[in-house]
């Protein structure tokens, strides 16, 4: 195991991310996305962010992506049921994305040499440590996120519920 593990996983992330957006079938996209997220989980593990790795695995891959899949199935969207965008637009989109990479990279001066990432404390990403921080310093945002979720819940019910059209 060497430093090259990171680059290998990074390559996989990028590869599957590309597949997500270029896959014709939305279902495939979802599946690729799940794989991508899995590579992210690996990244988290590499960074010793164990809590995040778990949450990512459970929440993203488990809950969110399943929800996506579920909705896709529910709506029964077939492959190519809608025309994809013209090649020109795709080209422009890709070029724009490339430019975005360049400008982001350029403006953050990413290509300069930088200090290597060193894990200073092993406990950093552990549940215990994060829990302490979450319930002390970040208590308020934590509480407030409940409002976010409640709001989303009420909203989702409100919107997705079938309502009989009134005359």
């Amino acid at each position: 195991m060497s430093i090259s593990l990171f680059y290998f996983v990074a390559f996989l992330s990028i590869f599957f991310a590309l597949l997500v957006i270029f896959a014709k079938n939305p279902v495939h996209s979802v599946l690729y996305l799940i794989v991508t997220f899995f590579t992210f989980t690996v990244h988290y593990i590499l960074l010793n962010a164990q809590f995040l790795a778990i949450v990512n695995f459970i929440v993203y891959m488990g809950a969110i992506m399943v929800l996506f899949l579920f909705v896709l199935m529910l709506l029964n969207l077939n492959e190519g049921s809608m025309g994809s965008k013209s090649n020109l637009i795709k080209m422009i989109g890709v070029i724009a994305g490339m430019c975005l990479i360049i400008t982001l990279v350029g403006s953050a001066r990413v290509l300069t040499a930088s200090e290597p990432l060193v894990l200073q404390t092993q406990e950093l990403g552990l549940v215990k440590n994060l829990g302490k921080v979450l319930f002390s310093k970040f208590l308020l945002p934590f509480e407030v996120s409940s409002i976010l979720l409640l709001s989303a819940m009420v909203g989702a019910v409100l919107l997705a519920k079938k309502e009989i059209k009134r005359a």
Partner: protein
Amino acid sequence: MENITQAIQGVPLNHYILLCTIIFSIGVIGVLIRRNAIVIFMSVELMLNAVNLLLTAFSVQHNDPSGQVFVFFIMALAAAEVAVGLAIIVMIFRNTNSTDVNILNKLKW
């Protein structure tokens, strides 16, 4: 676990930024080139995840747990957004039988 994490020691921070930037941009490209609202939405998720990873990397670099806590909040947001977003898409699908964003152009000019 120990030795796995050892592997990361020494990867330059900038490479993390580069990776996340690329993933983020792939998300943007996805938003740009796809017509299916759900796929677009997924691309957005891709962007969010890139941010998450980057935050974690920074968190490690600064040896500061708040970055990772922030990731947690972003995930909460993602959950909320997905709930609402999919609800909206379902609602629209009911009305139009499609999730193509291009057919939604009644509002213009």
